């Protein structure tokens, strides 16, 4: 100030102004212009933005567009495609695409590009599973034929998740400088730090409100700190932090099928092992009554309130609320008397008075295992063990350092797993006996011929709509199924809400039920987001 007073001429004033400006530039809390949105939602794809390797399978691929998409009610609607149909035998898809679509470099998107994308992804060895595709073929500029090797009603999900890349410019460098027909195009990606995108002028849909997006790829603590410092407009936080407050921001909780549940080995231990030497079977959990009783006694509402701070919902299947969810799965839980009755009817009773029930000299005891670094799973394991204690089942709880360790134990112990996706194929891999014990597929080696029949029928259904019925029946058909009323190979516990702090001015519309994977899925409708003053 002294400086200004003693030298009031304009040159010095300018200097002071410049210094002030310089300081302002350094100041981190400077407000962003409204056409720029800063997001700290995790989900940096280390290997780049190449859909043929798996980019974009959650939420929107952002830079690319897909043939179909799911709207906020999970209904399948068209995007690039204008119409699509499946032949009677379920082996030939015919898809026509819009004529006005262009890539962000101005070149038109044709059926050739779609053909190239699908055939390339099928060969790429990434996270796109196109094993049932025989080949994609462009018939003319806007029609593509997809022939399948076998009927697969879940194939339609590839149309929803696989972003179309340009045949002309797709190559080794593509993943780091993607070109697509999506609402945004990449400006720059500074790996491990941030990615900047701007609106794609060639986008065929409505121009998005935000001209520029900045994605911060920092870890959880850093992102939260940045939000507190007012540097971001939307930040993903773990449920435990959702109860905090950030000035100028609102908590936005999104329902998800990001679930957690107890997986039970369903076969007795006979000394058999897998080819990797992992022991198979557990005599206690092999008894359906034990599994049903546990399902019945667990108080899922209490788990949600106590462990998720209320940010979640009770889970009764792997797919709660999705179109292939069977509402009959839902039942009244927290019912110790009913659980005790199930046990007693099956011959489990406490004859030596130690509080733990036995049957034929076998004590109802097992170990619940969880990955040690996941605190929510740890709390769920501890709380579940506590809840089942009152019906005379004793569970030890053990954290393991890595999945690789758990892999050796998962066929013979109860494991806290979490799944949940927008593709019903998950149900098939979880419950079908065809791949039981193969990798993480059906680790409890659950077998039910009736369920297998429904699952096979669901895959072989003539189309997605027709498959829904069979997915539901595999859960409960009135007599048997994978739900807690049936064989109960799992005790599903909770669905997590995905929690975000968003700026008071940001309107993100209606978010769809999110799959497993906290973060990126919220961008599914990002082109509809707006800023309100």
């Amino acid at each position, binding site marked *: 100030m002294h400086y200004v007073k003693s030298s009031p001429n304009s040159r010095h004033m300018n200097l002071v102004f410049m210094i002030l400006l310089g300081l302002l530039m350094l100041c981190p809390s400077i407000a962003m212009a409204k056409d720029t949105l800063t997001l700290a939602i995790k989900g940096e794809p280390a*290997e*780049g933005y190449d859909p043929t390797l798996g980019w974009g399978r959650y939420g929107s691929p952002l830079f690319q567009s897909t043939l179909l998409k799911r709207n906020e009610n999970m209904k399948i609607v068209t995007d690039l495609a204008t119409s699509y149909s499946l032949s009677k035998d379920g082996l030939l898809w015919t898809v026509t695409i819009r004529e006005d679509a262009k890539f962000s470099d101005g070149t038109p998107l044709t059926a050739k590009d779609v053909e190239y994308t699908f055939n390339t992804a099928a060969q790429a060895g990434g996270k796109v599973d196109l094993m049932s595709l025989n080949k994609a073929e462009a018939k003319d500029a806007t029609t593509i034929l997809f022939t399948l090797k076998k009927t697969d009603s879940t194939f339609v999900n590839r149309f929803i998740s696989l972003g179309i890349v340009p045949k002309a410019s797709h190559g080794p460098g593509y993943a780091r400088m993607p070109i697509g027909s999506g609402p945004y195009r990449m400006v720059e990606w*500074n790996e*491990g730090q*941030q990615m900047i995108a701007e609106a794609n002028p060639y986008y065929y849909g409505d121009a998005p409100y935000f001209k520029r997006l*900045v994605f911060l790829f920092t870890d959880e603590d850093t992102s939260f700190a940045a939000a507190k410092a007012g540097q971001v407009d939307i930040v993903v936080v773990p449920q435990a932090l959702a109860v905090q407050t950030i000035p100028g921001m609102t908590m936005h909780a999104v329902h998800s099928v990001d679930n957690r549940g107890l997986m039970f080995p369903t076969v007795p231990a006979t000394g058999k092992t897998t080819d990797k030497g992992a022991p198979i079977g557990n005599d206690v959990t092999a008894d359906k009554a034990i599994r049903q009783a546990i399902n019945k006694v667990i108080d899922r509402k209490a788990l949600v309130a106590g462990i998720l701070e209320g940010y979640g919902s009770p889970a009764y299947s792997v797919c709660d609320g999705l179109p292939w969810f069977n509402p009959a799965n839902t039942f009244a839980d927290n019912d110790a008397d009913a659980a005790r009755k199930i046990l007693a009817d099956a011959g489990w009773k406490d004859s030596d008075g130690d509080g733990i029930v036995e049957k034929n000299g076998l004590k109802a005891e097992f170990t619940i295992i969880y990955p040690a670094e996941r605190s929510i799973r740890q709390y769920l394991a501890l709380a579940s063990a506590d809840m089942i204690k009152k019906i005379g089942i004793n569970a030890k709880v053990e954290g393991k350092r890595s999945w690789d360790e758990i892999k050796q134990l998962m066929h013979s112990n109860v494991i806290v797993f979490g799944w949940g*996706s927008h593709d019903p*194929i*998950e149900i098939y891999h979880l419950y079908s006996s065809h791949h039981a014990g193969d*990798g993480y597929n059906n680790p409890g080696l659950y077998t039910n011929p009736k369920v297998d029949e429904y699952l096979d029928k669901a895959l072989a259904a003539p189309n997605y709509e027709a498959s829904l019925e069979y997915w539901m029946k595999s859960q409960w058909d009135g007599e048997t199924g994978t739900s807690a009323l049936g064989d109960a190979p799992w005790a599903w516990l909770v669905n997590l809400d995905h929690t975000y702090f968003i700026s008071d001015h940001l309107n993100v519309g209606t978010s769809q039920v999110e799959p497993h994977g906290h973060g990126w899925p919220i961008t599914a409708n990002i082109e509809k987001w707006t800023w309100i003053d």
Partner: protein
Amino acid sequence: MNTTTSFWLRKAGKLVLILTMVSVLAFTLVSLSPIDPVTAYIGMDRMQISTEQEQKIIERWGLDKPAPERFIKWAKHALSGDLGQSMIFNEPVTKVIGKRFTTSLWLMASAWTISGILGFIFGVLAGTNRNSLLDRSIRFYAYTLASTPSFWLGLVLLSIFSVTLGITPICGATPTGISPADATLWQKLHHLILPAATLSVIGVAQIALHTREKMIDAMNSDYALFAFAQGETRRGVAWRHALRNVALPAVTLQFASLGELFGGSVLAEQVFSYPGLGKATVEAGIRGDVPLLLGIAIFSALFVFCGNLIADVLYGVFDPRIRIGSEEAR
């Protein structure tokens, strides 16, 4: 054959031996690690990926072949300068290391310079004025910080200067929304302050303590005693006689500390979300990216080797008596 040539030949031979051993050892360790890279890669997509597709991924990464065969294949390529393709970044390993190291270089270079210079000055001051208040405070500082984990110090600095005071940025190497190419030198430096401070504040301790010991030795040596006897002051002895003798071990230490610097930056980068080589190393480790880990192991071995080599060469510069080829001259 003159001594200069044999010196370089010996060094080259040593380097080849070191690199061979590092790669064999690193490969063996990674192969024995229980981490399954395919599991790490597929992650939560597990239930959407069929076993056939999983087999495709395994084939893409060449993991269907036995370990020795993979190593030989890798070594052949490595000899021609191709370190392979990083699994997690889907990019050539050399490219990943190059990009990440450029970012880390800023951090390491500034931390290294600051800690070297400050450490040396502190050590000389403390050693010259042994047991003075200055010496005791420097020692207190050094002992405290020598035992401080760098990530912890980083967190403390972060919570004070970035979260509470808000004068330094919270994360990254450039401001939010500004690409590295557009960022001004000022902005880059601003983002460098905290991580560099974390690294150098701790680095200072080692250098200062070692230099102090050497300084004390030098101040008690015969030549120092002789100088004192001729009426030289403490400062004079330190400046004119001891300094040159102390500089030599200090330089060795400084260049030998490149390894520690490397390790320290891994932790500091993690804390400050500074996207350098350290963060890439952690990623590669958790997700079992064998080619990248091997590449980084070799690169860091080379880095540390170069540090030691420079120290060897600098000996001659500081002390002509041990200059290369001095035997011939004699």
